[in-house]
């Protein structure tokens, strides 16, 4: 009986993870090397990959800075009541609970062309929805808890005594952060960065709603794959998917490495 269960587990694992990967790989090579290169070097492919790249970089940078700051303020703020802290702490998890599509929709409802805020920005010449800023905000919304959730427990665990010790030794907050706090949270932050990159690389729903998926304008790699599949351009879809998958595998390896370091410290 036990053997059957073991076999079944491996079967599910293979069906869910290994076969799709092999399928993507073989699919992208269906028309040989030239077919793959052609699919990937189409103007819309290059543009979509660039958009994804920009989103990943900007979102990761913003999420890292604000994620660390929020984690610091949530854990270290004595002036916040315990109840308020708990409330804010659970608010951080909101994006985990809300479907990304609904997250995207919320952004459209706030910044859409027919809303007050949207019209205000539009008047200033900044387009948010159906443009890059909206896509960045949407991805930021989806990835926001990742960094905060990685850093908060580490900060809680190391406590504030080392920082207090630094202050009695004459160090001000900036120096203390870099010399005392940062070395302790470093690996948590790196793990958070890897998670954020992975999530923003693969984000689909929120971006689709906000971007409108306009080819050569607001199309990302994932929404392009979606469109290629819709158009029965399976080879091209597989090609882009393969590139995304390659990145993901690379990130996975980094994640393992970061996790190990995190445990050491």
């Amino acid at each position, binding site marked *: 009986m036990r053997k059957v269960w073991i076999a079944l587990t491996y079967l599910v694992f293979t069906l869910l993870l290994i076969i799709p990967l092999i399928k993507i790989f073989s699919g992208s090579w269906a028309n040989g090397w030239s077919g793959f290169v052609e699919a990937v070097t189409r103007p819309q492919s290059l543009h979509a990959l660039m958009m994804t790249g920009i989103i990943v970089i900007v979102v990761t940078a913003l999420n890292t800075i604000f994620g660390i700051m929020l984690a610091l303020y949530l854990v270290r703020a004595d002036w916040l009541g315990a109840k308020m802290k708990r409330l804010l702490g659970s608010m951080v998890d909101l994006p985990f609970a809300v479907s990304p599509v609904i997250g995207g929709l919320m952004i459209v409802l706030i910044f859409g062309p027919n809303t007050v805020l949207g019209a205000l920005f539009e008047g200033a010449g900044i387009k948010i929805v159906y443009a890059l800023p909206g896509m960045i905000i949407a991805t930021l919304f989806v990835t926001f808890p990742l960094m905060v959730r990685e850093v908060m427990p580490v900060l809680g665990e190391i*406590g504030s*005594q*080392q920082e*207090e*010790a*630094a*202050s*009695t*030794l*004459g*160090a*001000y907050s900036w*120096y203390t952060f870099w*010399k*005392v706090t940062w*070395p*302790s949270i470093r690996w948590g932050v790196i793990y958070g960065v890897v998670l954020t990159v992975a999530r923003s690389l693969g984000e689909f729903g929120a971006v689709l709603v906000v971007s409108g998926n306009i080819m050569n304008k607001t199309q990302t790699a994932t929404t392009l794959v979606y469109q290629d599949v819709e158009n029965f351009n399976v080879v091209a879809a597989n090609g882009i998917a393969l590139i995304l998958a390659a990145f993901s595998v690379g990130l996975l390896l980094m994640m393992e490495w970061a996790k190990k370091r995190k445990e050491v*410290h």
Partner: protein
Amino acid sequence: MHIEVRNLNKSFGDFNAVQNVSFEIEKGHLIGLLGPSGGGKTSILRMLAGLETPSSGDILFHGKRVNDLPPQERGIGFVFQNYALFKHMTVYDNIAFGLKVKKQSKEQIRERVMSLVELTGLKGFEHRYAHQLSGGQRQRVAFARALAPEPQLLLLDEPFAAIDAKIRTELRTWLKEMIERVGITSIFVTHDQDEAIEVADEIMIINKGRLEQKGSPWEIYKNPETPFVASFIGESTIVEQVDKLKGFEEAAGEPGTKALIRPEYIEIGKPGEIKLASAATRGSVKHVHFRGSEWMVELDIGNMVLITYRPLEKEVLHPGDAVDVLVHRAYIFNDHESWIAENRLKVDPMPLYI
């Protein structure tokens, strides 16, 4: 550094951690803040360091108000209960931290750190990390780190709490010596009276956020000003009916008056053994416990139980033996006053009782 604290208060919500505490500390003195856990000692220490803001009251260093100065500007060294060593730094870097902040030159830092390493007996451990050190070594690193920037006041929060009982006594002596050698004004917090009595020049007893008494260990032992101090320092038994003891018949004036009697105030002997038999009360031995270097004897007198010690050289007592109990003095207190009463019959060796 001369320190003065005036009407210091600290409340956390509804809880008054520190209430109206005022004191002065002479330059170079070693002060022990002693009291039960949760009594506000650590809050006082943290306010002196600037890690906590007083709700009201003034803190003065050298006559200058420092309430609004951040900890960075106060010129203090702080040794935390769990040492709070920077765990990703070596012993050397830990000690050098305060000097690097001050942007001293590499040679200056090296010289100062090495002299402190030498002073604290950590030579050879400079390149170890905190997790590679024993508790005692960690404490010494924390001490050296706090001293490195040459503070004028050293604050230590339960410096011996995290150390094995065996090494603790050794470290106490070491710390007292170190502080004397450096000559720095120091305040340490402890809940252990032996520690305070042994290490401190002066003790401040803190209970429920209030300063109960300040004085040298001997003064506090000899003349406790409040019932709390009397019961907290040394060993003691509280007796409700002190007038049942010979020599204290007049001590219990009004109802609710109690007496606190220390084991060392009591002399016992088999009938006839005590010279001032007239001042002694007849009682019996309830229990005897062997305490390593002496016997602890529990006595039954009427319905009172008293505790005292008896040297090993004297004849061994057994439960049930009749004994004469001579109480030399008692600390008498009621709700509004307290005093020390001597055994009256001791003064007049030929009383009417004969």
